[in-house]
């Protein structure tokens, strides 16, 4: 009886607006989950994204700048730039504090660049996850 009532309430409960949680997740990785009352998920996703970003900075990874040219150049540079931007405040803070590492040859710097992109991609994954939770496509 109680379970049935709970199920009915969940069924009629309207989906939350997804805009604010998704925006918050972009600005501060993991923050949108806290708004949706999933603090454990939020803390874990924030940790993964922030650790990857900091490791990328410590390896002196380079940020991509949007560049166009042939198809491969456009895809790599614009895609990398979008992934960097997806880090939200982490990216803007790093830029504000004057972080500007040149893209030099070497495996450590190269991995650092990939870590900075990976961190942004993890944040995009978190934004999609937050969107699905807010629109009740996922619990």
């Amino acid at each position, binding site marked *: 009886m109680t379970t049935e009532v709970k199920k009915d309430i969940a069924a009629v409960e309207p989906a939350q607006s997804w805009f604010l949680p998704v925006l918050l997740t972009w600005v501060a990785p993991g923050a949108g989950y806290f708004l949706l009352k999933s603090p454990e*998920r939020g803390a*874990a*996703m924030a940790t*993964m*994204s922030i*650790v*990857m970003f900091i*490791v990328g*900075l*410590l*390896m*002196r990874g380079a940020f991509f700048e949007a560049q166009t040219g042939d198809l491969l150049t456009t895809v790599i540079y614009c895609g990398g730039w979008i992934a960097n931007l997806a880090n939200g405040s982490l990216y803007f803070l790093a830029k504000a504090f004057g972080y500007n590492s040149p893209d030099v040859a070497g*495996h*450590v710097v190269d*991995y650092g660049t*990939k*870590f900075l992109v*990976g961190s942004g991609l*993890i944040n995009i*994954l*978190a934004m*999609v*996850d937050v969107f699905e939770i807010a629109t009740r496509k*996922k*619990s």
Partner: protein
Amino acid sequence: MPKMALSHFEMAILFSLLTSVALGITGKTGRQEQIRYAAYCFGSFVLALFGLGWLMYFGHR
């Protein structure tokens, strides 16, 4: 700012670990399933790492 310098293998493992945990959290619901999926992703990353590593080794001989 200190500089971090790890080997190829250490960096690839660190990347795999962080990515696998994120994929586990977002890919599944329920703690057990998330842990299992993260472990599966990490195992796949490591397998691909060794597989591609050996492929490149033999490709360069």
